[in-house]
């Protein structure tokens, strides 16, 4: 760790320029709540760190008619306390409230949680159901990808050398839409998920008009459910349908055994988390 250089700038274009020229191994750091742990356990071995936490361009929350743009370096605490996000994207707020402790949320950023691309990152399922798009910038270039295309595998994503996440654009949920984030961890706070899910849907005239569902911590990447929404859309939810949807869970997810839990338990837990949601709303 002794030769690690920290590069910090308060100017986005300057930082992108430096990044483009950088030939050493680097990592982007914002709050450091993942990076510092990875460094300490030698899971990453960069020669320098680019600190984006001082870039004001990445620290804004902008709300327009049907979407919200959240800067990648906005801290989780700031997102949680933002009244517009709470109102229009409650599922994201519930998910972020489950991340770590207040101390961690005061430093951790949305960009960091997504950039770290852990299958257990709590914000990611919420971003899935909010149809988030990830705005990526590099020197002289800008692109935007869907959240489900952004993450490629555990700790792998589409970011190329020189690129950083600038912001996320998420749907503004309608007042007739409802949502949910549920998590099972090894304890009630400061725990990484054994399984989690984000759920968003709208009922009209007792029929399911739309439904988004995603599962975290139960596969190499967060999983967007296709079969279950298909089952429900256009129908009136009833106990039979709920039973059937719960039985589909094991087909959609690919959990593993690890130190946090077993695959078998994860399937069961997720089925039950889903039942909890559906029972409540259908």
């Amino acid at each position, binding site marked *: *760790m002794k030769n690690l250089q920290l590069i910090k700038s308060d100017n986005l274009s300057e930082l992108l320029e430096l990044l483009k020229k950088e030939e050493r191994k680097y990592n982007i750091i914002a709050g450091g709540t993942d990076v510092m742990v990875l460094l300490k356990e030698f899971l990453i071995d960069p020669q320098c760190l680019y600190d984006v936490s001082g870039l004001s361009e990445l620290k804004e929350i902008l709300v327009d008619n049907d979407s919200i743009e959240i800067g990648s370096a906005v801290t989780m605490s700031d997102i949680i306390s933002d009244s517009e996000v709470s109102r229009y994207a409650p599922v994201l707020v519930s998910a972020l409230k489950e991340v770590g402790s207040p101390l961690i949320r005061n430093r951790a950023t949305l960009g960091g949680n997504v950039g770290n691309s852990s299958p257990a990152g709590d914000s990611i399922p919420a971003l899935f159901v909010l149809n988030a798009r990830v705005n990526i910038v590099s020197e002289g270039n800008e692109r935007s990808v869907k959240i489900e295309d952004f993450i490629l595998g555990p700790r792998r994503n589409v970011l190329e050398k020189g690129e950083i996440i600038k912001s996320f654009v998420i749907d503004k949920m309608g007042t007739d839409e409802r949502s949910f984030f549920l998590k099972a961890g090894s*304890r*009630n*706070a400061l725990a990484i998920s054994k399984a989690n899910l984000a759920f968003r849907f709208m009922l009209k005239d007792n029929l399911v008009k739309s439904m988004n569902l995603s599962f975290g911590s139960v596969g190499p990447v967060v999983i967007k459910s296709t079969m279950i929404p298909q089952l429900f859309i256009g129908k009136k939810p009833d106990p039979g349908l709920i039973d059937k949807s719960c039985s589909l869970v094991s087909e959609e997810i690919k959990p593993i055994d690890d*130190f946090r839990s077993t695959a078998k338990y994860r399937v*069961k837990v997720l089925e039950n988390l889903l*039942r*909890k949601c559906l029972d409540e709303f259908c």
Partner: protein
Amino acid sequence: MYSKWTEYKEDSRAENAEDAEGKNTKLLNSTGRVFVEFKYVGKSIQRPDAVKKVTGKAYFLDDVKLPGMLYAAILRPEYAHAKIISIDTSEAEKCEGVVKVVTGKGCEFKYGDNIRDLTPFAVDKVRYIGEPVAAVIAENTHLAREAVKKIKVEYEPLPVLVDALDSLKDDAILIHEKSGEYWHLPGLGPKAGTNIANHYELKKGDIKKGFDDAEVFVEGEFVYPWGSSAAIEPHGSIVWFHEDKTIECWSSSICPFIIREELGRVYDLPLSDVRVHIPELGGCFGYKSDITVEQTIAWIASFVPGHPVKWVATRKEDLLSTLLGHGMRTRMKIGAKKDGTFTAMETTIYQSTGAYSDTGVHVSIGAGHNCGGAYEFPNAHLQSYLVYTNTPPVGAYRGYGHQESQFATERLIDILARKLNMSSFDLREKNYMGDGSVTALGEKLITSHGDVKKCADLVREAIFSKEKPAEDDKYYYGRGFSGVMKTPKGAPFSSKSCYLKFNADGSVAINMGGAEVGQGLRTVVQQVAAEVLMIPTEKIKVYTEIDTQFSPWEWQTIGSMFTTQGGRAVVRACKKAIKMMKKTAAQVLRVNIDNLKYDGEHVYLRNDPSLKLTVESLARGYMYDDGMTVGDVVHTTSDARLPRYSVPDANGQGTMGVSHTFGAQGCEIKIEKATGKIIIDHFASAFDVGRVINAQQIRGQVAGGVMMAIGASLCEELVFDSEGRCHNAMFRKYRFPTIKDAPEKQTIEFVETPGEIGPFGARGIGEHPVIGVAPSILNAVYDAVGIDFFRIPLTAEILKAEMDKK
């Protein structure tokens, strides 16, 4: 709060305390007595260290910076059991900032307070995964850690023993080849040629007859696995070999005097030439007792005389290179008559104590003789085997052997009650110890040892007085109960002492050797002294740092003994001080000392209170108008030891318990059907503490202890694989509960049957709240789902899997 004390009305103290503390917990109101005769004892005064701790200004080991300080990093082995063939330090020596690389080469001494089997560094072989192999001293910690990576060690791996049962096999490799030669205290010690570090055996009555008389039997094997005290402040030490051939040490420890004696012995110095400082401590819970890391750091520092060397454990080192708790397997059989009267208990405990046994030996002895808990067994055969394994050493952990072995007792009693088709409360009541009972150790109890039945009734009322909720769609509901008994596990010379001095303005300074680890002993000292001296607590200043150069001798701050023993020493010192003032006053007033009274402000003549002298006028002796002085400066010393503590006799019996605290615990839980998650809705504890000294703090002790044991019961375990490696030695994977996992409601009540030893009758309470938690929860799990569990932690995964099988 201190400022409130005068506002307590005579009959409303309990309610005031309750209002201050929140609606869920009753306090002190259950005995039907409110102790209005005390002015300071039993109140909730503010801790003198509170402001510094909440503002971050308290001074801990890692805050200590000294001139010329160097920093150490330690290499740990890749094998849990291996011969060291060679150590190549040449690359490390070339690294930037490196001052010296140190190994165990040439280290010939062993150390330990009970069994001298510890070495500061591995010499020829390594015996566990966290053992020190080599160290780098460098200009800063980062450079030291970088250089440690360059040390090359060649090992020849040896077979690894992880469980005591494997170490006991005839063909097991010996972890200590020469254990028979180790120095040890009388009455204990290793069995040469085996991996047994100590075998304790207790015989009471006639075990054969006891089982012959029995009509019903229950037996089982129970496992309480390794866990860590996991204090937020890790272990750390600074050692400085001065050029004048004295040693100075700072440590995050609760045994400064053991450290001083050990360093003095090993480096052949008069004890007065070794000075040990203890700054504020960020938690202990047991594992900073007995000497742990200090000899290792001293060995390192001895290579750079003139420079203080600092080392602070990483979390991994704190978990794997200091002391673990538990590692205990208990096999127990209980025999009883059909009416429920216990006739016999046979217990064999196997403790996997790790690679070194010095710190674990009393744990296993205590687990052995106190495994019967709060119950009287007329006949008992109790054994505990302390067994070497290739895992980190086991030492003190809050509860000290009691929660591990009484886990078995309390579970088996519930199972026996089912077998007898009897209420488990009736069964327990038939066998509770009380006035006239004889403990396993052969000690006869009297009323003043406490009343377990009263505690049990309080818990029963709190938890079992209402109907249990019926099973619903989401949850199973259950309730469980456990009795509790604990004694301190003392040792010869387990004393505490006190220096007290009156200042010229009538304020008082008290200096003792007890370590404040968060338990709040400073307020105990203040309140006890205030009560005896009859002066407000704010006029009593209690020591902060412990420094063996100034502090009075104390064995170590363990065994929940400070209030009892330390408080006793405070009372004695205060009484001596009052006597000194009277002596001077008698001279001045020209009366007999017996005719004088003291009221906190004056010493006065009993039959003419107008004839009086102020305390201030007596504090440094008395000065007449002409400047002539008489009398002595008022400063006193005192001590208190465990009365009549003895080592075990041929039957394993003796006065080793001395001071008993009885109690009861119980809980209401629900189990989420979907996930197997155990949710504790209500946890109740009641202890006969003899006397409550600080109402708010004692609640904190109990509430915190319950939480700690909920962690052990539901989620905490350090797991070692067959190679002796641990994969969850980090807080990310070693999970203890947070405040969000706390029971919805905790009821905490106290019975006050004054004891004979402690101040105003107070008994120990620090460790006791952890003891009945696991059996209460597992008894409640049976009540909820009809499944008996014999091992903790009971995770949601395990419970769900068993529920599905059913």
